[in-house]
C-alpha cells in the first residue's frame, strides 16, 4: 500500500528535490561551458562574474574576462538553454500529438518549413528594404514571424497527410516529411541563388544551425517563447497522456480533442519557428532527448515535458561547447554536432520499429 502511494504521487506531481538536482546539473554544465573557449577562464572567475552580474556582488575582476563572460559567452549559453529546451519540448509534444515516437520537428519537415519562411524573409526583406528604405528593426520581427507561419502551415499539412481515423501512419508521416524537406530544399536553393555574397554566407551557416547570433532580441524572443510554451504544455500534459489512448478515448474522457490538437499544433509551430529563426536548423534534439527521458521516467507527459526541457538545454549547451572548441579559434555549426549524435540514434530507433513499419 505504501509503495502504491508513492507510485501515484509520482505520476502527477513534480518531485521538486529531483527537479532541483537536475537544474543544479544544468547549472554545472553552464559553468563548464562558459569557462571553455579560446581564452580559458577559471571556474572561480566565471562564478564571480555571474554573481556580480546577477546578484550585484562586488568582486575584483579582470576587465577582459568580465567582457568575455557577460557579453559573449553568457548570452550565447542562455540562447543555448532556451533553444535546447524549446526543441526538446516541441519534440516530446509532437510525439504525443502524432502518437508516434519518431515524430520530430526536423524529421517530419516542420523545421524545413520554418527555414523556408525565414530564408524568404531574410532574402526578400533585404531586397525590398534596399528599394523602399525600411527600418532595419523590422527584419527582426519579419524573420521569426515568417518562420512561425511557414512552420504552422507545414505542421498542419503533415498532420493532415499523416493521420487518419486509425491513428497516425508512420510511413505517411515520414514520406510527407521527405517531400516537404525536398520542396523546402529547392526553395532555399532558390533563395541562395537570389542572395548576394554576404547573405549567402549567412544563409548557409544558418542552415547548419548556429548559436552565434545571441542578440538581445533573440534572447528575449526565445526566452519568452520558452516560458509560454512550457506553461501551456504542462497544462495540457494530462490531456496529452489521454490522447495517447486514442482520439475517441480521449473524447470519452471529456477532453475537447479538436481544441487540444489545434492548441498543440499552434504552440509547437511557434516553438520550432522561434528556434529556427534564432538559431537555424538544429536537428535531432527533439527526437533524442524525449526518448532518453522516456527510458528513465516513462512516457507520462507530466514528467516527460519538464525533464526533456532540462536535458535538451544541457545537451545543446554541451554540443555548442564542442562546436566552439573542436576547431578553435574557428567554430563548427552546432547542427553538424547534433546530427552526428542524432542520426545514428534515429537509425537505431528505425531498426527497432522495422517490423511495425513493414506492417503499416
Amino acid at each position: 500500500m505504501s509503495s502504491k502511494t508513492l507510485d501515484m504521487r509520482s505520476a502527477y506531481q513534480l518531485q521538486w528535490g529531483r527537479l532541483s538536482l537536475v537544474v543544479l546539473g544544468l547549472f554545472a554544465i553552464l559553468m563548464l561551458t562558459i569557462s571553455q573557449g579560446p581564452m580559458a577562464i577559471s571556474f572561480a572567475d566565471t562564478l564571480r562574474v555571474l554573481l556580480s552580474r546577477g546578484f550585484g556582488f562586488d568582486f575584483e575582476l579582470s576587465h577582459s574576462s568580465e567582457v568575455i563572460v557577460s557579453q559573449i559567452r553568457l548570452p550565447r549559453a542562455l540562447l543555448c538553454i532556451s533553444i535546447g529546451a524549446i526543441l526538446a519540448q516541441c519534440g516530446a509534444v509532437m510525439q504525443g500529438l502524432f502518437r508516434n515516437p519518431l515524430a520530430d520537428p526536423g524529421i517530419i519537415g516542420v523545421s524545413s518549413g520554418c527555414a523556408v519562411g525565414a530564408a524568404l524573409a531574410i532574402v526578400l526583406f533585404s531586397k525590398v528594404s534596399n528599394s523602399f528604405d525600411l527600418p532595419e528593426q523590422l527584419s527582426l520581427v519579419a524573420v521569426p514571424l515568417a518562420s512561425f507561419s511557414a512552420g504552422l502551415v507545414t505542421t498542419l499539412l503533415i498532420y493532415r497527410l499523416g493521420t487518419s481515423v486509425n491513428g497516425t501512419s508512420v510511413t505517411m508521416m515520414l514520406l510527407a516529411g521527405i517531400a516537404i524537406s525536398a520542396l523546402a530544399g529547392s526553395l532555399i536553393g532558390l533563395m541562395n541563388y537570389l542572395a548576394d555574397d554576404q547573405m549567402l554566407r549567412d544563409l548557409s551557416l544558418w542552415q547548419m544551425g548556429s548559436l552565434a547570433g545571441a542578440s538581445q532580441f533573440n534572447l528575449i524572443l526565445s526566452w519568452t517563447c520558452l516560458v509560454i510554451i512550457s506553461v501551456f504544455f504542462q497544462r495540457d500534459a494530462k490531456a496529452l497522456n489521454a490522447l495517447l489512448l486514442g482520439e475517441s478515448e480521449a473524447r470519452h474522457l471529456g477532453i475537447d480533442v479538436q481544441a487540444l490538437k489545434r492548441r498543440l499544433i499552434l504552440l509547437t509551430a511557434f516553438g520550432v519557428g522561434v528556434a529556427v529563426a534564432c538559431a537555424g536548423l538544429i536537428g535531432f534534439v527533439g527526437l533524442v532527448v524525449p526518448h532518453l527521458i522516456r527510458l528513465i521516467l516513462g512516457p507520462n507527459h507530466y514528467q516527460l515535458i519538464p525533464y526533456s526541457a532540462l536535458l535538451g538545454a544541457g545537451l545543446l549547451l554541451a554540443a555548442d561547447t564542442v562546436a566552439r572548441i573542436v576547431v578553435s579559434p574557428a567554430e563548427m555549426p552546432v547542427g553538424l554536432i547534433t546530427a552526428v549524435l542524432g542520426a545514428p540514434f534515429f537509425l537505431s530507433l528505425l531498426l527497432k520499429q522495422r517490423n511495425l513499419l513493414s506492417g503499416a
Partner: protein
Amino acid sequence: MNDIKQSASLRLENVSFEYQENRVLENINLQVYPGEHLGLLGANGAGKSTLLKLISRELKPSSGTMFWFGKSSDQWQPLALSQRLAVLPQSSSLSFAFSVSEVVEMGLLSSSLGYRRQQAICEHRMRAMDIWRYKDSPYTRLSGGEKQRVHYARVSAQLAQSEDQAKLLLLDEPTSALDLNHQQALMLDAQQQVSRGCCVVSVLHDLNLASRYCSRLVLLSRGEIIANGSPDQVLTPENIAQVFDYKAQVIRSDSANFPVVI
C-alpha cells in the same frame, strides 16, 4: 409519460444513420433504463458498432433525436457527461509504455476527487479485474486480454467518481480477448454495476454470454431492430435463423436459469 422520458438513461427516437448514401441504421427507437443490461446482437455488418458509436456520440445521427439522461447532445458539457458515460473500446492503439496503474488512473483524468479517494477507486477497480499484481508493469508488455481488463478497470473507475447519479457504461465486445474465467469476472462486474443502478449496453457475439448476463436483448439485422425483449423472447430458433442464417436449438436446463443456444 413525461416522467418515463426523464428517467430513461438513454432514449433514441426514429434514429437513422447514413454513410456514403448507404443506410446503416434505419428508424431505431430504443429506451434503456437504469438497472438494465442491454445486449446488442446481430450478424457482422448489422449496424451494432454504428449504433454504439451513435450512443457514445462519436457519430451524429443523420436524422432522429437522441437523449442522454433526458438531455440532448448539445445540452451536455463534454466534461460533465464523461463522469456519467464511459466507453470500453474493442481495442486500444496505446503503444507507449505507461504502467498499468497510470492507464487506470487516466479514467480519473478530470476528477475533482481528493487524491486518496482516487487512489482507493483505482486500487479497487484493479483488484476487481485481477490486474493489481501488474500495477507497476508496462502496459505494452501485457497480452491482449490483460490489456482489455486494464481498460475495463479504467472506464469503470471513470464511472466510479460520481456517486448517486444515473450512469451509462458502453462495452464494445468486452470479452472477445478474454479467457473463460475473466469473461465471467468482467460480466459479473458489469452485473454489479447494473445492480447499483448503472445502465450497461454491450455489443456481444457470444449469445450464451448475452443470454446469461443481459436483462434485455436487442437483435439487429440490416440496420433495423427485429427483436427487443428478454432473452427468452429474443433468443428463439426463428430469430436466430433469420439473423445469423444458422439452424440453432434453444434449450432450457435445470442447471441454468437462462436459455442456452446450441
